[in-house]
């Protein structure tokens, strides 16, 4: 499976309007709904917030990765969002600049999408990945940064 099967240039926000976690997640979920990737926006949102409440997904400096396996998801997808000035996640401090929202359907015939998502998760542990995402100028640039990092892992 290719990255482009779960991610595309319509599923990106290059500069978020929101300045906090809830607003950001909402902005990102709206894109999934617009692209017809959800069965139920409310159900997916509920599952994402539940997961986030269990333990924060902002584990790596500057980066958060809200995610949920949910009945509200029709097709697997990843939304990318970036904030130039930073957003507040768990604290008032506006320290998160890159967010990946991961949507995984409850039931799916194949594991292909899980393999690409797990590899994407590994990318976050490489320091230059974050910097390259912050510096990318265009949507295509962001896809290129992610593909380069995925290729360097496999």
């Amino acid at each position, binding site marked *: 499976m290719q990255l482009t099967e779960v991610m595309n240039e319509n599923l990106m926000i290059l500069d978020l309007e929101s300045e906090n976690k809830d607003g950001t997640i909402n902005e990102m979920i709206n894109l999934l709904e617009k692209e017809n990737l959800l069965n139920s926006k409310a159900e997916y949102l509920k599952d994402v917030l539940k997961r986030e409440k269990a333990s924060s997904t902002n*584990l*790596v400096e500057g980066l958060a990765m809200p*995610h949920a*396996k949910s009945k509200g998801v029709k097709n697997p997808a990843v939304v990318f969002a970036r904030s130039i000035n930073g957003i507040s996640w768990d604290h008032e401090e506006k320290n998160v600049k890159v967010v990946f929202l*991961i949507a995984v359907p409850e039931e799916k015939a194949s*594991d292909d999408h*899980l393999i690409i998502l*797990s590899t994407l998760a590994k990318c976050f*542990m*490489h320091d230059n990945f974050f910097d390259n995402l912050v510096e990318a100028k265009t949507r295509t640039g962001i896809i290129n940064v992610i593909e380069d990092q995925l290729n360097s892992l496999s």
Partner: protein
Amino acid sequence: MKLLAVTACPSGVAHTYMAAEALKEAAKKENVEIKVETQGSIGIENEIKSDEIIGASAVILTNDIGIKKESRFKSLPIVRVSVSNVVKKSDQIIKQIVQKLDN
């Protein structure tokens, strides 16, 4: 010195794999060999076999959810850490284990 690790997390989508990658990167920095098994939504990957357990110095297990087939590690010192701490502090964790084993 060779270390082993098994990572797992409740949803099995992301942190399992981030933790595995974090441990591999940290071990590389310390010049230690490590094999990391992931127990995530894809199932068990990079499974640790019994002959690999014999030659190992210690095993790191994440403790957020149960580890499958944990009993195979009973001959080894076990270090239990939460998956989020592994992601955040893998360098420290590996360093401490190496120091402890060296003494």
